[in-house]
């Protein structure tokens, strides 16, 4: 079994650019060291929390801004302010049109390029004292409230795994690849 698996995967890897030098001996082949073990589905499910811009990783569930308002007030406003603008932590609302000014205001509405990132991050890391404690419905709801407050969706828009990836963020085209070295030599 192992030999068949090893040979099969080695062939695939050998064709890839990253592995172009090819396996020189058995230890450089897949499972050549014989260390570790297959991960179980349960182990993967427990940690596989990332949400991609395609929407891959979004769970079942839904929410609206109306539902999110109370949740924001109860769980988020202490750090971000009653309207998401006052802080003391990151400002979340407003700032449209300020990025090229002397004092840019980078918020979810003015800066974030993907709405899916908001789901990923709120679920992953918020609320700060209790990360990963919100249910999918709660995350969809608070994400909806933030997008509504930023003028990106309507108050009654239902966010779920299908609708969230389709949301067009205002600064979606605002990011460019690294052009460095960019400073002329003296």
């Amino acid at each position, binding site marked *: 079994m192992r030999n068949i*698996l090893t040979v099969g*995967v080695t062939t*695939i*890897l050998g*064709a*890839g*650019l*990253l*592995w172009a030098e090819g*396996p020189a001996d058995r230890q*450089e*082949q*897949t*499972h*050549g*060291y014989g*260390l*570790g*073990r*297959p*991960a179980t589905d349960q*182990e*993967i499910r427990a*940690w*596989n*929390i*990332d949400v*991609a*811009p395609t929407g891959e990783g979004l769970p079942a569930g839904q929410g609206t801004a109306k539902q999110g308002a109370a949740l924001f007030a109860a769980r988020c406003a202490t750090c971000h302010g009653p309207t998401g603008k006052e802080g003391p932590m990151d400002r979340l609302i407003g700032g449209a049109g300020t*990025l*090229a000014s*002397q004092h*840019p205001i*980078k918020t*979810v509405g003015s*800066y*974030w*390029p*993907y709405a899916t*990132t908001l789901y*990923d*991050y709120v679920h*992953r*890391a918020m609320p*700060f004292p209790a*990360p*990963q404690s919100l249910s999918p419905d709660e995350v969809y709801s608070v994400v909806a409230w933030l997008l509504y407050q930023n003028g990106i969706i309507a108050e009654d828009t239902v966010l779920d795994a299908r609708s969230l990836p389709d949301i067009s963020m205002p600064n979606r085209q*605002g*990011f*460019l*690849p*690294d*052009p*460095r*070295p*960019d*400073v*002329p*030599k*003296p």
Partner: protein
Amino acid sequence: MTRHFQEEGPSGGDGRPDAEDESLLNRRSLLAGTAGLVGAMLMGPMRLAAEATTEISPEDPTRVPGAAPTAYGQRSAFEKALRIPRSWWSSLTPLQDSHGILTPSSLHFERHHNGVPTIQPAQHRLLIHGMVDQPWTFTMDDLKRFPSVSRLAFIECSGNSAAEWRGPTGQTAQQTHGLTSTSEWTGVTLKTVLQEVGVHPDATWMLAEGGDAAAMTRSLPLASILDEAILCYAQNGEPLRPEQGYPLRLLIPGWEGNTCIKWLRRLKLGRAPFMTREETSQYTDLMPDGTARQFTMVMDAKSVITSPSGGQHIQPGFLEIRGLAWSGRGRIASVEVSTDGGRSWRQAALQEPILPKCHTRFHLPWRWNGEDVILQSRCLDDTGYRQPDRTTLVAVRGVNSVYHYNAIQSWHIAADGKVSNVHA
């Protein structure tokens, strides 16, 4: 004290196997018999051992026995260099007190996003999944069994010197440049582990995720990191410090510290960046036209004079100008020092070893005549990149980009010898 001595006595602690030759056994019997007596004799020094962590010193240390050995060493009680915990999020390395190129693990800067987690190494796992032959999981013991590699490398937060964009802010080198440190890192190469798992040839990006309360994640372009990335379990000869990712962290030499995910628990292979919060709303460089640069991973060449530096007072006469230079693109090729605000430059001596993507120590002998002067250093790396002056850097990037500030640092020395941060 006595109990401590008995525990450390001849019946254990030397790591030797129990079955020994007769002479050793005899020696052990003898030592066991005299343990009480020796213990009593050592009471004086044992008391001193406790006092070695205080500033109480005998009038003449040659006239009294010194301190006994200790299980885990501490620095002299007379040494006071400390990190500055700047907030809940970070602490700064005291570069002005540093010697050579290594940062003591206890003084390595910290940056974390929801505290330092406590992780039991026996329970820690690294999960590798996504575009792989088969999802796979490793224990720490598994990872330590792979062939190991060690290398010296700096890690610099891309937010190092961020406050300097808008004007001279930090008072000391620690405050202006203290988010960089150098350690020897030991682990297994990422390439070895991915080879073991079997990665799909179309996988081009890898998500790395930490097991902290921020579940910190970054997407990394696989082809760019595969030659040098290390999954590290050790730092400066011992397991990683908790604040440096214990028990497992990623090291990508020369890349911004945030990519070197700490408390590493998961790698997911994919075809595209995952666009996490840390690579979209954070760690992107806002330009004057309102666009932002994304995936600006490499830390460009940078240097700073650590002595004399901000907050210090110097006396006229000889002193050695000392500093650190580093480049995320390769080796430091040269460092020049100006003592006249950049009008003229002299070559500093580079102290071996001069390693790629590692702090490099430079020196220049100097005599201060008590005049008002401005000290600067600028470095060149082996790719031909030269550290820019502040005016040139700001002309290209403006002052709103937050990250990757690497302009020449200026220290003003006033006639009274006081050194302060200025932008010249």
